[in-house]
């Protein structure tokens, strides 16, 4: 049972739904991150799915109560770790990947799988940080359809402090960028699956706070795109929220115009 204090709140859930990712630093000790980094550096081959056998300390990353609290908030209390995991080694001199989704373009608007990317070292922009296009987790676009995109105006780079984790919706567009430094950049990717549909929120839900922040779903544009896409995104965000809450009803108004003040009349014209 996770203590309530480690769970996300409504505003954080709204932000995850909108952005499709969140960056969190559990504040592991410097020694802990260093041990993992040294073990990664000492690997002679990439152990693939067997990375936990080589670096068992990684179990403590995903066993951390704050980390478990986030995963439970996003996936429900019955979430499980997937058997696939990978140590990404972005070597100096690398070229960036192309944009891709790790998911299979299933047409759903849920949080079925979360990627957890743990970075044992500080990642600067020169070290090939993970690039993300916010809000693209709603888009059903096979990765080969993304091959002609270069840089997006609203892409973000995961430049993070040592020990940080980026939690991502499985379908979000992302890529490793080029490593122009002289250090290998490590990232340990793990997957976590939802196992049951939500019957109620699995985070620290407060209806009053949820009503207060619900407007974020309707007004926040995180990546410039077509206006009609933005309208659809808002609809899909609500769909995701409904799925995550188990369909709870909030007393909210979607009428953005009601009560809006008119500009002051120019009395000189009277």
């Amino acid at each position, binding site marked *: 049972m996770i203590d309530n204090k480690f769970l996300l709140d409504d505003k954080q859930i709204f932000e995850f739904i909108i952005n499709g990712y969140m960056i969190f630093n559990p504040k592991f000790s410097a020694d802990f991150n260093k041990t993992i980094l040294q073990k990664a550096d000492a690997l002679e081959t990439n152990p693939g799915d067997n990375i936990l056998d080589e670096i068992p300390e990684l179990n403590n990353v995903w066993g951390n109560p704050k980390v478990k609290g986030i995963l439970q908030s996003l996936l429900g209390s019955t979430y499980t770790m997937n058997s696939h995991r990978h140590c990404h080694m972005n070597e100096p001199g690398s070229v960036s990947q192309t944009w891709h989704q790790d998911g299979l373009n299933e047409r759903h608007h849920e949080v079925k799988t979360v990627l957890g990317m743990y970075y044992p070292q500080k990642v600067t922009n020169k070290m090939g940080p993970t690039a993300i*296009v916010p809000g693209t987790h709603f888009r059903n676009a096979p990765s080969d359809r*993304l091959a002609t995109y*270069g840089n997006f*105006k609203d892409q973000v780079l995961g430049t993070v402090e040592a020990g940080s984790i980026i939690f991502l919706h499985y379908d979000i567009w992302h890529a490793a960028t*080029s490593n122009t430094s002289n250090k290998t950049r490590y990232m340990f990717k793990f997957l976590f699956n939802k196992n049951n549909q939500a019957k109620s929120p699995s985070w620290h839900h407060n209806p009053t706070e949820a009503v207060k922040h619900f407007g974020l779903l309707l007004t926040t544009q995180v990546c*410039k795109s077509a206006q009609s896409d933005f309208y659809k995104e808002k609809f899909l965000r609500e769909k995701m929220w409904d799925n995550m809450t188990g369909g709870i009803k909030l007393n909210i108004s979607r009428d953005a115009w009601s009560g809006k003040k008119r500009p002051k009349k120019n009395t000189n014209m009277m």
Partner: protein
Amino acid sequence: MSIRQRLLYLHAATPSIRSEIIAMAIHEPIKNSVTQIENSSIEWLYNSVHDAIIDGWRIIHFPQQRAPFEDREVDVMGYEFILEKLEDNFD
């Protein structure tokens, strides 16, 4: 001296050449050149396809205007224009 084709992919917010650019990739006709996601600040050459035309680029591919049948879904982002510029200063 040989004339070579430079290619510029501009993804615009709408099919209009005057709409805002949301993504960009340039491919230089130089052996081993790389087009990639930048890990540093990006120089945005143009704000619109129209700006690129003024700078001498020619559009060789216009985006499809037809709307998707599944209109509640979103898929790729923006509208893809491919532009070319023929230049001879690569030797």
